[in-house]
């Protein structure tokens, strides 16, 4: 059956698929179906692959559920467990409804990211076409060491571009306009919706759960603006209001924040008062005598003592700092009182002795090797074909002519540049091949050091094949060129 680590969320028996009875399993990350009596799945879809689900209308005799995948394929399940079939189907539907949006976001995000990269970078796009579409390497491999590197880059570039906050006035700005016949019109832009989502995360969740399965976008927002959640002064309209839960969740969040307490002891009003021994009002006693008497006092105290010291350790510095801050008079203090930052040395001997000149070495140490490998790795990671910065075409063509049969002697036609010599489409193709080959080489080099069986495999079988494919491609191009020439 399923691997043990997978969590099964729902099991539905007597589900038919392609006229075969079986059992449907909803796992944490996928949905699977296995025929009766066999312990393997014949159908298994990751939630991320599923575009949407469809159900048969309520009145129909056959109770079915259809899953449509991103690839366009679909799978239909027929619930045939007599009386409970409808209930089974609805349970499945409900669960899927909750699960799908989560994975959709994840899948979409990755897809979007890839899409964006391809669109932003024509060179990459070309590479993708050359290598993936022509099946030299698989798509996964192509992205494998690109995505990670790009997300890093991406986050870096994001940091420089500061995230835009929520306008303070956005709530005031969604003023309704009366449309003249007892109605209100709200003008929503995507910015406002984004702001609403960021201000009220629970609304976003509701949106993901309900739109477009249960409600249209318009209906959703109409309900939102009618809800008491938006109009805090309106009394809850009852169960139908899908936002009543939001308010409750907010409340819960606030409560938990309040019970956590504040970090800054100077603003903690609970700690302000120092009044003891006054009349007890709402204390129902601490529950009589302590029954769980520690049998071994000494060990008990020492162990818990350590704990409490720990908690103090985390709490103290902030308190100390705040206290010091609050008693400081910066104008009374002389200049010498200015705060300086203490030099924090990990190895003070290195600081006092200074660098020692290395003996000249004629052999490569293991450190050198590691360094060079890391340099290669670094270079490979950041490798980008810089087509504009190669040799100028003049220099290139003169070199070619010099090396061509006749060499320097063939002065006559020598000065023709290559872009005059070769038709543009051939040039472009050559360029693409060059970058594609470069990318393959990058893959090749990035396999070093070969420290996993996977990399070894890739290097030995795989890459060689790829390079072979590239060569043959080049061959094809070469012959085509020759053919054209002749």
């Amino acid at each position, binding site marked *: 059956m399923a691997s043990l680590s997978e969590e099964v969320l729902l099991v539905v028996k007597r589900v038919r698929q392609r006229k075969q009875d079986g059992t449907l399993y909803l796992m944490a990350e996928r949905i699977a179906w296995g025929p009766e009596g066999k312990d393997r799945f014949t159908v298994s879809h990751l939630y991320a692959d599923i575009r949407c689900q469809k159900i048969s209308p309520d009145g129909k005799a056959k109770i079915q559920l259809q899953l449509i995948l991103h690839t366009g394929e679909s799978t239909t399940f027929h619930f045939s467990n007599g009386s409970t079939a409808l209930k089974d189907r609805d349970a499945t539907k409900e669960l899927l409804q909750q699960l799908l949006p989560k994975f959709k976001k994840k899948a979409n995000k990755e897809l979007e990211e890839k899409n964006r990269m391809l669109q932003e970078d024509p060179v990459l796009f070309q590479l993708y076409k050359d290598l993936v579409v022509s099946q030299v390497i698989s798509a996964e491999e192509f992205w494998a060491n690109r995505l990670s590197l790009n997300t890093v880059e991406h986050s870096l570039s994001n940091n420089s571009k500061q995230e835009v906050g929520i306008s*303070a006035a956005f709530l005031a700005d969604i003023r309704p306009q009366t449309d003249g016949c007892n109605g209100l019109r709200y003008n929503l832009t995507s910015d406002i919706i984004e702001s609403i989502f960021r201000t009220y995360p629970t609304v976003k969740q509701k949106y993901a759960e309900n739109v477009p399965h249960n409600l249209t976008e318009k209906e959703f927002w109409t309900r939102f603006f009618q809800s008491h959640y938006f109009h805090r002064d309106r009394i809850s309209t009852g169960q139908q209001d899908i936002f009543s839960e939001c308010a409750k969740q907010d409340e819960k969040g606030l409560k938990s924040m309040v019970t956590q307490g*504040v970090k800054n002891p100077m603003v903690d009003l609970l700690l302000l008062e120092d009044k003891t*021994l006054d009349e007890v009002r709402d204390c129902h006693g601490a529950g009589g*005598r302590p029954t769980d008497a520690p049998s071994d006092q000494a060990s008990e*105290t020492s162990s*818990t003592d350590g704990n409490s010291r720990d908690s103090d350790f985390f709490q103290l510095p902030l308190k100390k700092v705040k206290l010091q801050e609050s008693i400081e008079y910066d104008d009374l203090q002389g200049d010498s009182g200015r705060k300086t930052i203490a030099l924090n040395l990990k190895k003070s001997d290195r600081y006092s002795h200074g660098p020692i000149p290395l003996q000249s070495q004629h052999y490569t140490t293991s450190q050198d090797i590691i360094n060079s490998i890391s340099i290669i790795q670094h270079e490979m990671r950041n490798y980008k074909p810089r087509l504009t910065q190669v040799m100028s075409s003049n220099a290139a063509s003169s070199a070619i002519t010099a090396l061509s049969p006749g060499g320097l002697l063939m002065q006559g036609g020598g000065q023709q540049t290559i872009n005059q010599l070769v038709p543009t489409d051939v040039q472009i193709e050559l360029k693409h091949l060059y970058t594609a080959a470069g990318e393959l080489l990058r893959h090749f080099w990035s396999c070093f050091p070969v420290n996993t069986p996977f990399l070894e495999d890739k290097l030995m079988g795989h890459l060689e094949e790829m390079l072979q494919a590239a060569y043959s491609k080049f061959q094809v191009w070469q012959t085509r060129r020759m053919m054209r020439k002749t």
Partner: protein
Amino acid sequence: MKLNIEGLLVYFPYDYIYPEQYSYMLELKRTLDAKGHGVLEMPSGTGKTISLLSLIVAYQKAYPLEVTKLVYCSRTVPEIEKVVEELRKLMDYYAKQTGVKNDFLALALSSRKNLCIHPEVSSLRFGKEVDGKCHSLTASYIRAQHHSNPCQPVCQFFEEFDAVGRQVPIPPGIFNLDDLKDFGRRKGWCPYFLARYAILHANIVVYSYHYLLDPKIADLVSKELAKKSVVVFDEAHNIDNVCIDSMSVNITRRTLDRCQTNVETLQNTISRIKETDAAKLREEYMRLVEGLKEANVARETDIYLSNPVLPDEILQEAVPGSIRTAEHFVGFIKRFLEYLKARLRIHHVVQESAPQFLKDIYEKVCIDRKPLRFCAERLRSLLRTLEIADIADFSAITLISHFATLVSTYSKGFTIIIEPFEDRTPTIANPVLHFSCMDPSIAIKPVFGRFQSVIITSGTLSPLDIYPRILDFRPVTMASFTMTLARTCLCPLIVGRGNDQVAMTSKFETREDFAVIRNYGNLLLEMSAIVPDGIVAFFTSYIYMENIVASWYEQGILENIQRNKLIFIETQDAAETSMALEKYQEACENGRGAILLSVARGKVSEGIDFVHHFGRAVIMFGVPYVYTQSRILKARLEYLRDQFQIRENDFLTFDAMRHAAQCVGRAIRGKTDYGLMIFADKRYARADKRGKLPRWIQEHLTDGSLNLTIDETVQLSKHFLRQMAQPFRREDQLGLSLLTLEQLQSEDMLQKIAQIAQQA
């Protein structure tokens, strides 16, 4: 720097000094020399605490026989800790300058909640629980039981302290609450009891008002403090209310119900003990015959049950025979309880004096005055005899016994008010018996009587002369100090009208007025657009704030304010408000800007500072009069009029203005700080109100800043903020509001300084 204050060498741990600090020290020195009491008002943020500490420590070092101890009382735990840190700074400076190792012992004392290191007990959340649990581990009979039965849990830290802690004195040094805990952990001693023991020989003690003013606590904690101590009450503007609260008792039906269960438990315990251990009860009886003197020598661990007030004559006498046996006493309490229950079964408000109450109780249930006076002490003895561990459960009966003792001890200065329901909810029966103290001098009298110098000081004590009157003492010095300023960093403005010329006021008749509320809203809206970072707005009460905010919401004003700043609101829930405060500060820190809507007399107005960008403007919406319809207040006003010749209106205005000053003073915490103080009520412009503001605020109220419209306010504020935004350097201050030692010694300057203090 080293200062010469009229012949006294004072070490001051800074390179510069404010002129008013010098002046303050002069006055303080004169007070100590005269061995009298003093009332000193100096604005917050002018280094009051360090001036006090520097001078008194210097005095202690110079005349060790004249002043043996400094008892510094402050109001909140953070304040207490701040004082100790300033003291540490001073002592470090001493050590550095003189090269002599510090031989002073200074320590902070706080409740068990803040000092306990017992792993189980200290993890409890509420102070009450900590006290109760601690008692159940450290009471003397519990420990006696532990002796015969090792399974009975006791607190190892207390045992350890009790065994050796008293012989070895705590070494000289500065011990803040955390330092005490560290020390306790190292030694394995209970820091709380260690501190309570150590205050007897410490040179400086810093603790909360209650340890001195609440007779129940003072009797146990501070009873043995030396007479030659100097007592300082810092932030003392509210000291009269603290005194009154510590002597007042409120009894609800719930208290009585719980008292009933307490009585039943006592009865059962007594009958059980009678069967098993009758000797114990007999022994107690004999003890009571001999008088209370011995019974009063309580072990310090039994402090939980203490008598609110023990007049000396009680201690000489024996407990009256009618309540001497345990059963008789419980019967007596039962009768008293029934009487109180009957009194609470009313439909109209009753107000009477203590003698009237005593007469009535004698007529109805034949309870005499004498046994009532012994009630608290008798109960204490009984609970000890019965070996009741969890005293927190017996709080109700303890409260009743305190009431009995107080009502029979004092014939003057108290009033009894029984209300069948709250004024706001006349349909819900909720009878309350208020036994209310009206004379703050009762609680503080022993302090003035016992200690040679008591200093009352705060940023807002105006008008100065009222405090000696209501606290009934005779000060040798009364002075108010101004803040010398190189630039006018505070800007008090009185807004009296909206742009529509409608008067702005929280006066009862017009407070619901639509126009007033709208104008208040517009004021906040306009200010939110021009003031950077944080604004704090104070309302006169929670209800008023709720009404106004609801109204602003309906009018859409709130939305528009939110365009400029985030809004936070103080609620009656302390945990919630703490969270709001933290988020408020966060919003001020990150530049988003925020508004805190708060309430005068609330926790925030009393305990939280809004330094620098946390409070660039304070808006006081209305005059924060106390709720005048309260019967307790009316009784108090009457008492003030009859006893101290203070007119009702004078006291009410004084009380309102001290709270208003407290609120607006929250924003200015030093000379480098700056802030707007906006009084949004036309009544502030009147001389009788204005004149009661502290001098350091009044000085900056010109005729041009009275009765402004919102527009004018905005113009003036913009101008002020623009000026304040200019760089402010030390050179700008030097010689004016900041002095070097040489500047201080010049003849000119000394003359100028003499003008800073205004004697009342």
